[in-house]
């Protein structure tokens, strides 16, 4: 809740709303006259005595507006309260209880969702003869709860299956207590949003109702002001402020409430968070490595947050030769995925590359505009995602994915389909799946379709970001065999990113180990596995229990990696390292230095700490 208020939208809304609430509370002080005092000259123009003029009946419009704030906010508040209470009861109750109760309540919700509110209110209100506001408020609430109930129900349904709710059931918590103390605290923002929405609905509906003379027209609200203004011909007699002021007030309160809701929305759905600044292009660095197909130079990338920029990749340089398989291993948060997206200029806001170059066959992709970069993408380097489950557009067919890709790069459609058919066949997918939608494919099939797509334009390089992570062991092995075929038969270079080091050893030419946004070690796969140098690599390899040999107690690496925003003054692995040198490792960031022919490692155990102002000094918080 507090976080929601940090949104700029919410703050603006809250300020406006606070002003109106203050006016309502202090109405007797602020309003110069009684709203019903009709002793002034009718239809007076605005003046210091009557800021907004007077009505046909000689009442002060400004005083009515001030007092009307009270009546109007009251309606909004009470409608919000009643409608939300109903919505919570029906939505959360039905959603948690499930079964026939839920079916009935859900059907009821659907009915009320569709029944047109205002006409029903009008009809019902027309039968009501009492002069109290309450029936009107109740009727409006009664027609306005359904949307909230629907949203709360679906949220409850999803929470009900969440493991922490199951855990509460498992320890013997009672259903009522689960709803009140486990479910509800997680729905406060949704309930607040629901309350605000219902309040807006209540204010607008009541105003409409009062405008046509239903309800108590003698109460002072903005709606009744509009009723009197209209019925006494305010516009025809030129008293346009009489109309303008109360309507604008309604719209303003509605806008303020809407802004508050917008802030809450941003909180519950981080994807909505706006305020992404456009960044300048990253500062280029270095020159492409000789003989490399892809050469990354000093890439620094991260994410812009409200609290400032975070650095996920802290100066990484890597190179891939033609036909080579480079494996990149690292744990969650080590920056490996960010690096992959950054390398192709595909990091999207709030992600950003701060510095560095990515030379693909000599062209620095990061120095290009998106439009200039597009022709290189997929034609020279394609990209297979971690979540190929969602990589296909759910509403178009596999064939359309093929054709869209072909069209963007000038490949004739007939040839594209021909190639795609052959590729699918290679990956053991029958050709008729060209006409399938993604939901008709199994997980393993989707991944193979994406692999086939990645080869459509015969690229020189494929970047693969955890392509087998969500898959079962057997399917994973089959996909790895397909990737070996791509490597062997087509001579494509592959950069393969994974958290599973054990997967890399058998297939990679070279392996790079990433930790906390840096490459800590790289070298030929067999050598890294047989003679790991960095204590982190050693610990990582020891963390895989073997499938053979005597069983013995093994230990992982204690602690956890530094956070993205953390400022590092020394080796990022210092806190977890069993071989650390106090006073050395925590003082200077180790540089990646050669150990033997093709093996490099960034560790003070294998060389002198570099001078403090080394060009590769990384880890400065930006």
């Amino acid at each position: 809740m507090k976080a929601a208020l940090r949104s700029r939208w919410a703050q603006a809304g809250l300020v406006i709303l606070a002003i109106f609430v203050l006016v309502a509370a202090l109405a007797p002080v602020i309003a110069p006259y009684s709203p019903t005092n009709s002793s002034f000259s009718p239809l007076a123009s605005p003046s210091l005595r009557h800021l907004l003029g007077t009505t046909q009946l000689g009442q002060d419009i400004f005083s009515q507006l001030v007092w009307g704030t009270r009546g109007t906010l009251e309606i909004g508040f009470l409608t919000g309260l009643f409608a939300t209470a109903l919505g919570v009861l029906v939505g959360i109750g039905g959603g948690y209880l499930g079964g026939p109760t839920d079916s009935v309540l859900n059907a009821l919700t659907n009915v009320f969702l569709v029944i047109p509110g205002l006409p029903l209110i009008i009809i019902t209100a027309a039968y009501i003869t009492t002069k109290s506001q309450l029936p009107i408020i109740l009727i409006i609430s009664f027609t306005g709860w359904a949307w909230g109930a629907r949203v709360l129900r679906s949220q409850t349904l999803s929470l009900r299956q969440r493991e922490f709710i199951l855990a509460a059931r498992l320890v013997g918590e009672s259903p009522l207590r689960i709803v009140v103390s486990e479910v509800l605290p997680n729905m406060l923002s949704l309930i607040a949003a629901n309350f605000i929405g219902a309040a807006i609905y209540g204010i607008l509906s009541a105003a409409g109702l009062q405008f046509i003379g239903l309800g108590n027209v003698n109460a002072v609200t903005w709606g009744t002001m509009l009723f009197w203004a209209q019925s006494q011909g305010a516009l025809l007699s030129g008293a346009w402020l009489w109309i303008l002021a109360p309507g604008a007030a309604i719209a303003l309160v509605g806008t303020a409430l809407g802004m508050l809701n917008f802030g809450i929305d941003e909180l519950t759905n981080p994807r909505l968070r706006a305020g992404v600044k456009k960044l300048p292009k990253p500062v280029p660095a270095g020159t492409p490595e000789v003989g490399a197909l892809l050469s990354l130079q000093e890439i620094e990338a991260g994410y812009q947050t409200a609290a400032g920029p975070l650095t996920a990749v802290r100066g990484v340089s890597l190179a891939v030769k033609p036909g080579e398989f480079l494996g990149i291993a690292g744990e969650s948060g080590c920056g490996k995925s960010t690096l992959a997206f950054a390398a192709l200029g595909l990091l999207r806001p709030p992600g950003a590359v701060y510095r560095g170059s990515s030379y693909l066959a000599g062209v620095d992709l990061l120095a290009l505009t998106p439009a200039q970069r597009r022709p290189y993408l997929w034609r020279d380097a394609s990209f297979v995602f971690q979540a190929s489950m969602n990589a296909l557009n759910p509403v178009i067919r596999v064939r359309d994915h093929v054709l869209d890709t072909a069209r963007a790069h000038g490949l004739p459609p007939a040839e594209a389909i021909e190639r795609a058919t052959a590729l699918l066949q290679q990956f053991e997918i029958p050709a008729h799946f060209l006409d399938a939608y993604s939901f008709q494919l199994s997980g393993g099939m989707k991944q193979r379709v994406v692999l086939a797509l990645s080869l459509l334009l015969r690229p020189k390089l494929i970047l693969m970001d955890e392509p087998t992570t969500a898959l079962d062991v057997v399917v994973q092995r089959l996909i790895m065999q397909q990737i070996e075929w791509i490597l062997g038969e087509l001579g494509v270079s592959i950069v393969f990113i994974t958290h599973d080091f054990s997967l890399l050893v058998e297939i990679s030419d070279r392996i790079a180990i990433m930790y906390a946004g840096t490459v800590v070690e790289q070298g030929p796969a067999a050598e890294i596995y047989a003679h790991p140098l960095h204590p982190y690599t050693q610990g990582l390899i020891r963390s895989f229990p073997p499938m053979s040999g005597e069983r013995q107690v093994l230990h992982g690496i204690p602690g956890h990696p530094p956070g993205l925003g953390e400022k590092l003054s020394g080796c990022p692995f210092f806190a977890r390292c069993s071989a650390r040198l106090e006073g050395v490792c925590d003082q200077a960031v180790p540089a990646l230095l050669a150990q033997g022919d093709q093996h490099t490692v960034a560790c003070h155990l294998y060389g002198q700490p570099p001078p403090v102002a080394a060009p590769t000094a990384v880890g400065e918080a930006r």
Partner: protein
Amino acid sequence: MPVLQLSGVNKVFSVGRFPTVRHLRVLNAVSLEIAEREVLGLVGESGSGKSTLAGVISRLSLHDAGEVRLEGALVPKRLSRRQELAYRRRVQLVFQDPYASLNPAKSIHHAVARPMAIHHLPDTSADLLESCGLSPAARYLQRRPFELSGGERQRAAIARALSVRPRLLLADEPTSMLDVSIRLDVMNLLADLREREGLSLLFITHDLAAARYLSDRVAVMYAGHLVEIGPAREVVERPLHPYTQLLRQAAPKPEQGLEAEHLAVAGEVPDLANLPPGCPFAPRCPKAQPTCREALPGFVQVAAGHQVRCVLYS
């Protein structure tokens, strides 16, 4: 006496609505035992029914047929509130995802101490956290889950499960969401608990190597059927069932040379709504014989305590 005995447990899930209801046979005649202080590893791929089995044992869902016995006593399907609480005190579950299994709106203290309150136990949450490796406990008690790392969360979730001092702990892929470098220590914690508290443990995993590391015995499931069960090292190092062999082949084993074995199997796990009549693995099995597709083979005792459901051994 075994802590838990399952015999012939069946579970069918009905998904979809009229007129396209599909009945998924998620568990089919599953029988197994977990002895006191034993760690039984349960291995299978997604959809094999291993998580459903944990759900049935923990009574998050009820089985359709078969018997569940806890400490020798038959557990009826309907329990009174008191019986239910008594059962929950004996059997607890640790979930796979430590990011989802702790209430984001509640403190760690709530997670650990609330079960103690429900069961009228003294609040020993601080000691419990310490014994699960969250030390000093005072630093963790008032924190909320998002302030903890993945490993710390899983330790807190284990502490919650232990808060009622259960006899049997079900751990459903407790390490698969964790980083590789901290998995071993969470497994070591579970091993410790067995030693210290005398717990029995059902350790569910898709990783043969992890099952071998932690378990006394390993059971393998495929498409809702138990296909092999036996001493951990035997099952993992010399698997008998063709499916277990396939699992072993598919797993990366860098320590056994750098050339991966080539898998010769195709196809996918069968549709649980339309299980083949015989052995569920027969359609994919490289060694399948005509009889495999006719009837589900029974278990064959191949060595002491090592049973396999496959006609190759009868």
